[in-house]
């Protein structure tokens, strides 16, 4: 008997089940780690997945955690659709947060209905500007955007760090964090005694708009053609470079908006850990969501659940909170592997 790998297209019912399969495989793979950390894997997964949903506060906290991921996930999905491999949502998030803070710090006495749109706009514009650099480099100089967007993340982080250790250092505490933004520049709460804020609805609305744009409009079909097969799109008379630029800019803008939402909804100031990897997690969310808007919403909620759960589980079972991150990282690798391998089949073949 010999084991053979065959390439064969996946049956139609398979792709929607893949994210689920990835989750199951991930849990099997990481259970050894959970066990090593001194906990029963099944109990740990109970705390990861079920416990957070058992109380109102922690269930709403899942939505809070999902909010920035929803936006960065959408940002990454939009870029991938247009064929722009944007690994830079992290950097775009950071400059968006920075720009929003800059506006928010100067909004004292300005009514919220002016302050908040201004902040959102500046966050969006800053993210766009940050994405413009690699986008133009790709369309004009054919530079690989994976590399440039990734490198710009570090630049953005250093920029934030420089601001917080220099001109924006908090004059009261002397910590590397900005002063608090104006009270009128804060996103209103959606539920009392929780952290849930208007940003969640903004994220949902964004997901809806992006989903409709890509699936239901002429523009979206053009963008999909460009992302799937640029050569054929160009042949069909679609302006490939322009579409690529639009998808990159919109993606950067949405990632920047995510930065604004975190500043105005959670921290009320700029801190170095404002993102903490939301941009990178956005890639996971987009892939896990099978690059569809409803899928991304579900994926963001799921990652939000694991994020919340990793705190519950560490409290309840005394395992490190980083276990949640390990599980997320494993999930990304498994998801990518499953997506790649769906078109292959293992088969035993008789000898002779």
């Amino acid at each position: 008997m010999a084991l053979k790998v065959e390439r064969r297209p996946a049956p139609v019912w398979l792709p929607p089940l893949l994210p689920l399969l990835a989750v199951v495989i991930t849990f099997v793979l990481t259970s050894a780690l959970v066990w090593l950390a001194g906990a029963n894997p099944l109990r740990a997964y109970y705390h990861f997945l079920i416990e957070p949903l058992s109380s109102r506060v922690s269930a709403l906290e899942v939505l809070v955690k999902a909010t920035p991921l929803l936006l960065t996930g959408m940002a990454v999905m939009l870029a991938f659709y247009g064929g722009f491999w944007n690994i830079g949502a992290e950097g775009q998030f950071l400059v968006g947060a920075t720009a929003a803070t800059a506006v928010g710090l100067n909004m004292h006495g300005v009514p919220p209905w002016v302050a908040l749109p201004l902040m959102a706009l500046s966050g969006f514009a800053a993210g766009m500007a940050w994405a413009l650099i690699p986008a133009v480099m790709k369309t004009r100089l054919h530079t690989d955007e994976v590399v440039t967007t990734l490198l710009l993340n570090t630049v953005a982080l250093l920029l934030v760090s420089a601001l917080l250790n220099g001109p924006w250092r908090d004059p009261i505490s002397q910590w590397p964090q900005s002063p608090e933004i104006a009270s009128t520049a804060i996103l209103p709460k959606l539920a009392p005694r929780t952290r849930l804020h208007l940003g969640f609805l903004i994220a949902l609305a964004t997901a809806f708009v992006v989903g409709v744009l890509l699936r239901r409009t002429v523009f979206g079909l053009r963008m999909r053609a460009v992302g799937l097969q640029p050569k054929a799109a160009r042949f069909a008379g679609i302006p490939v470079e322009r579409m690529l630029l639009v998808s990159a800019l919109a993606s950067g803008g949405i990632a920047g908006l995510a930065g604004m939402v975190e500043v105005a909804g959670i921290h009320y100031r700029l801190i170095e850990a404002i993102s903490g990897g939301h941009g990178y997690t956005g890639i996971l969310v987009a892939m896990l969501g099978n690059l569809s808007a409803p899928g991304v919403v579900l994926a963001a909620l799921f990652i939000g659940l694991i994020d919340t759960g990793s705190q519950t589980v560490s409290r309840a079972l005394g395992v490190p909170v980083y276990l949640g991150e390990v599980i997320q990282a494993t999930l990304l690798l498994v998801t990518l592997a499953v997506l790649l391998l769906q078109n292959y089949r293992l088969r035993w073949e008789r000898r002779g």
Partner: protein
Amino acid sequence: MTQQTPIVSMRGIHKRFGAVLANQGVDFDLQAGEIHALLGENGAGKSTLMRILYGLYRADAGSIAVDGRPALIRSPRDAIALGIGMVTQHFALAAPLSVTENVILGQEGRLRLDLKSAEAQVTAAAQRFGLTVNPRAQVHTLSIGQRQRVEILKALYRQARVLILDEPTAVLIPQEVEQLFQTLMRLKAEGVSVVFISHKLSEVTRIADRVTVMRSGCVVGSMPAAQTSPAELARMIVGQTITSVSKPRQLAADRPMLILDDVWADDDKGAPMLRGISLQVNAGEIVGLAGVAGNGQTELAELIEGTRACRRGRILVDGADVTRAGPARMMQAGVGRIPEDRHASVVGDLTVAENMALEHLNEFGRHGFLDRARLRRHAEQLIAEYQIKARPEDRIRTLSGGNMQKVILARVLERRPRVIVVSQPTRGLDIRATEYIHGKLLDQRQRGAAILLISEDLDELLKLADRIAVIYGGRIVGVMPAETATPERLGLLMVGMSHETGGPDHGAQS
């Protein structure tokens, strides 16, 4: 029926690829010293059968005997040991190595490499079989025809008594085909058996001693070549009578629709590829463009498709200057484009309906939203009109080559283009699809379209074209009425052996 033991005898060969039964109970006998043609459409199972014999695939069931003894062939190594050699369509040569090095590669034997004596052997074999090639030449400097000879030498060096050639003439110009046939006759005289996979009937009846025809994985007949005719073979291949379309009388074709005036363009690497092309195609006329691949026909097509920049010169469509037009403006000007690479002109993961509308999406929008119902109706109508075997919602990548080509054809012809530039329209298609496409192109000619037909298939050009131009080294080296064109005359021009100017051409020759 046969007296002596066949050198190769395959019995009850079954092979399945996923849902496709490529071979279902195939029996095949090869006699010593015969040239045996294996005929059939694409996907009939010819290559699969021979790949099983050469050990590239393993049969799911069935047996093989060589010289009457059961043979277990698990890899090409086993096949070579049994004296079986194969030249596939994709050559397996190391480009930076010399001819001799390639020939002995894998058969070096001892530790010391005796290139001298190997070279002498290669030279001797080359002379004996008329396989003219310099044993010291590096393979990357050789033409396709020469590389094929190296592959044959390789098999002979390994003492092949059975030589399998998979569509050997598909890549050759007429003169090279002639030379290959001479070689095959000499091999036959030396007692080598040859399996010749082909779908060109005229070749088969000329060179083969015996013909076996396959259809959808089964053998439908096997007979001495002398007892059959191209017409009968065609019927066996397809399973029914196919009436070949013929060219109707040409209507007045004196209105220039497409004019190329001293056009220059670069290739992908930025090197000059087209060096002053001047050509004119009139309304109601098919101008064929012949040439060996890589002489600029791809670039010329892309120029008219609007995807390649014109360095110098002018392109006119019905009098309008479209020299710098992109794809969108080319289409607006009335150019219909059926490109060489089907897969690069459709988006594989989009549906048939979406691909059919892709070039004119604005007509399928309502306030920016996609009118899905309209998209679907449009697709259903074209599918019915062009007899495409697909549903509107199928991803286009799942279609067969013929159906995909029909989608592209439908998308183009629906716009009633005034100029059509079409490259290799029937490459890889079966006889039925080929006839269908040919018929549609001739209909367009009758309608008054000006058609530039770029093809490496001379039979296709001779059948459809009113005039034939030959491109060589990025220049048009000859234009002639199709009635005066012969494969030999075209072949000489295609390899740059002669240059014909003037002649009875009413196109713009510089």
